[in-house]
Every structure is written in structure tokens, then in C-alpha cells.
């Protein structure tokens, strides 16, 4: 296979990347490979020093998902039907391979297959943390005023008096409404 970039030399590097759902195949020769991948470039020029890029303790968050998936009863069985999440188009195999779901709806769609994995990797399967309800859609007048007062305080703290007087005007006009 010939290099995609220079079209001259034999390609030594072959990769399939899935960027934002678009699969791209790349074939590069040794020289073009060195020039192409920016992070590789960096790694080449700082071979000794750049271990910490991959190993930075602050960012080694990703769990050992691979273990959980390969232990799950679903891992080696290829499903006869190619189910795909209707919302994002991802299959369960996509998830098994990359460890990431395609969208929030995948949790509904693949619920049965996901729950054993989730129960294996988590403390439990029921959310006990912070409740979330989005409120801004139906913000009441009081909410708006409270929000403006907060911003007013910030503006005053920052000594941005122009902004502060603008916010004051908004508060006054809101308070005057429907009264």
C-alpha cells in the first residue's frame, strides 16, 4: 500500500479512526507518519520527558471498563440482530469496543445489557446523589430578580458601576411589572 500523503513510499502505518462518528482510514509512510501526528511529534522530540502526558495522575480517570465488559455474559456473543440505538445509531458492539456509549438514550435502549455491567462496576444501581431539575425554562419573576441581585452584587464587587446601574434598572422594571 502506498502512503496517502506523499503518494510515493510504501505505507508502514495503517489506522482507522472514528472521529465524531466519521471513520477515516489513514495509511502513511515512515517519513510522513513522523510529520503527521502532532502528539507523536511531541513524543518523539521529548521521548524521555513526555511520559507524564499519558500518565498524568490527574487524568487517569478512565476506569478499567475493559475488564467489566469482558467479564459480562454479553461480551463474546455476537448478537444475531444488529440492534442500534435509534437516536445515535450506535450498536452495543460499538460500546464494547470503545467503552463509550453514543448518547444518553443508549441507556434506555441497551438498558438490559447495561445494567449487569453497571451493577458490577458501581456501588449500586440507584442514584443517591444530587437531584437535578432544570428550572430556567419556567423561571419565575422572583427567580429572575434573585439572579439579577446576585449579578448586581458581583458587578459592585468588581466595581463595574456601569453594569451595576444597568442591572438595577432591570430589577426596577421587573418589580414594576404586573403590580
Amino acid at each position: 500500500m502506498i502512503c496517502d500523503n506523499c503518494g510515493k513510499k510504501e505505507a508502514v502505518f495503517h489506522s482507522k479512526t472514528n472521529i465524531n462518528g466519521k471513520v477515516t482510514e489513514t495509511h502513511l509512510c515512515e517519513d510522513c507518519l513522523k510529520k503527521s501526528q502532532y502528539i507523536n511529534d511531541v513524543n518523539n522530540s521529548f521521548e524521555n520527558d513526555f511520559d507524564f502526558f499519558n500518565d498524568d495522575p490527574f487524568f487517569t480517570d478512565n476506569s478499567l471498563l475493559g475488564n467489566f465488559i469482558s467479564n459480562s455474559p454479553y461480551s463474546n456473543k455476537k448478537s444475531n440482530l444488529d440492534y442500534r440505538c435509534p437516536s445515535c445509531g450506535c450498536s452495543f458492539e460499538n460500546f464494547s469496543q470503545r467503552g463509550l456509549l453514543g448518547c444518553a438514550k443508549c441507556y434506555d435502549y441497551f438498558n438490559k445489557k447495561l445494567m449487569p455491567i453497571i451493577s458490577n462496576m458501581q456501588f449500586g444501581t440507584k442514584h443517591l446523589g444530587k437531584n437535578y431539575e432544570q428550572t430556567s425554562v419556567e423561571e419565575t419573576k422572583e427567580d429572575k430578580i434573585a439572579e439579577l441581585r446576585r449579578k448586581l452584587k458581583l458587578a459592585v464587587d468588581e466595581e463595574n458601576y456601569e453594569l451595576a446601574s444597568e442591572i438595577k434598572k432591570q430589577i426596577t422594571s421587573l418589580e414594576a411589572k404586573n403590580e
Partner: protein
Amino acid sequence: MNKEDVNQIVVSSRVRLARNIENFNFPCCLSKEKGEELRELVYKASLKVGNFNFYNLKNMQECDILRFVENGYISSDLIKMKEIAGLLLSPDETVSIMINEEDHIREQCVLSGLNLKKAYDIINDIDYDLGKNLKFSYSKDLGFLTACPSNLGTGMRASAMLFLPALCKSGNITNVINTVSKLGICVRGSSGEGTKASANLFQVSNQNTLGKSEKDIIQLVESTVLKICELEIQAREVLLKDNEVGLKDEVLRAFGIISNCYKISMQEFYDLIAKIKLGIDLKLIYIKCDEDIFNLINMVKPYNLMQKENKNLNNYECEIVRAKLLNSYFKNTRV
């Protein structure tokens, strides 16, 4: 165990929250157009939340992006998403919000010392305001929905960076790691898995995010951190009792090299700075400097050096510049 002892060992505390926004695919499956739209949406929402500096990664110079990685504001994974990635950074640099990494939003707060509760309060306030201005993906049963099920529920990772030279030296670090992992706590060395760690630094964090409240998770991580601190302090006492002379010799030699070398790699720097820091903690050497000596770690990383020198440097040049900076930093610091 007093607070001063603990803060000698706990270098920093970090709390991060993972969030996604409704009606957008997760970043791994997001088109360029939708990704750009989402970045814009988060940026606009942030204007109502606080005073952040916004960075569109696509428009940034490579050297600036890599310096941000060095400083921990962004992960190296964010670079892979460059086209659609963004960063919101608070002016004091303690809060950073990555846009379109593994999840749509990764909010984090990093504070020095053992400060998990405060870090959580800060990031929780921001999360509350962001959540009013954006519609997060959330279900009553599974909590905040994340691209990887390992972040479900609270979406929270609470972690502390610990300096554990004595436990490394005694070899007990392996036992400690095995013991706490049974409690749902994860310990990672700064050079990947296991016991090898740059500058004897380890990250201690919660393994699970679903099935416990944020408060309980913080409590679990904090109590584990305190337990590890206690073990480290005991190991330090043993170390001092067994071989004070040898230890002092090692510390002073490290000081000698770091103040006089002509070139130095990051790896050697990590080894030396760990010895010197331990020497300071154990009062084997007296050094007068205004800040924590571990602040040097980011300062001598390659892209920070390049910014300081205002030019590109290759590895060799970096080593020379690093040595120069360290020579002058430690000049006249011994008392």
C-alpha cells in the same frame, strides 16, 4: 496528626463532575457541526455563571495547548477532540471546564492541600448555575448520564495527590494500594499503574460514582486519605530512626545536584525533588522559599519552560534551561 503534617503529604485536592447536555450525542459520536454548536452553547451559558476565560482549542497554538496539559487544566484526551473542544478557565486557574472531552462537560476544581469539601462546594455552585442555563442529561434512577457508565450517577471523581516517599521506600505502598482498593478507592502512581510514581506522587480517588451521595464519596476519599497519611507519617518515623545519617546524606546530595547541574531530565528532576521535599518535611535540610517546593514541578515542564523563554526548545535545550532555572531557584535558599 495535625493539619500541618497532613498538608505536607497531601499536595492537592481535586473534584470533577461529568455532565452531558440533552439532545446531543456524546462527543465520541458528535458531528463537527453539532460539536461546534455545543461548544458555543456551553460558552454562552458560562457567561451567566461566572467570569471565565474561554479557549477554542481549534484556534490555539500547539505549545499553549500542551502547556495547559502540563498544568492540568485539560487532559491530553481533549487534544484528540481539538476540532470541537473548548476550555473555560477561571482567572485564578483553580476551576477549569473542559468542553467535548469524553463527556460534553467536565467541570473541575483543584485546590492545594487536603481541601476536598471546599473544592466540591466551589464546583457544585458552578454546576448548579450551569445546570440552570443548560439542560443536562439526567435520569432519576441513574443520575447524570455519562458517556462511560463508570462515571454515572454523581459524575463525580474526588481525588487527592499524595506525596508518599516513606511508604515507597519501605515497600509498604503495595499493601496500602491493595487494602484501600477493597474500599472502593483507587490509587494510581503518577507513572501509570502500580508503585512506580514520579516524585513519589500518588492519586487517591473514588472508584465508583453511582450508589452513594456526593457527601459520602467525599467522606470516603477524605477518611482514606487521612488513613494513608497516618501510615506515611509512621513510615517516616521508622525511616528516620533506622537511618537518619543515610537519609540526610541523600537529601544533601540531591540538593547539591539540583543546585549545580548543567542539564537535567524530568525523570532525574522528579527523583531529586522528592528527596529534597522529604528532607524539608523531616527537617533534615532548611530551605527558605516563599511557596511550596512542589510548585516547581509544573514550572520546569517543557512547555512551561518554552513559554518562559518565549521560544521553541528541543529536549536537550529544555534540559539545560531547566537546570539553569533550578540552579537559580535553589541558590542561597539553604539556611
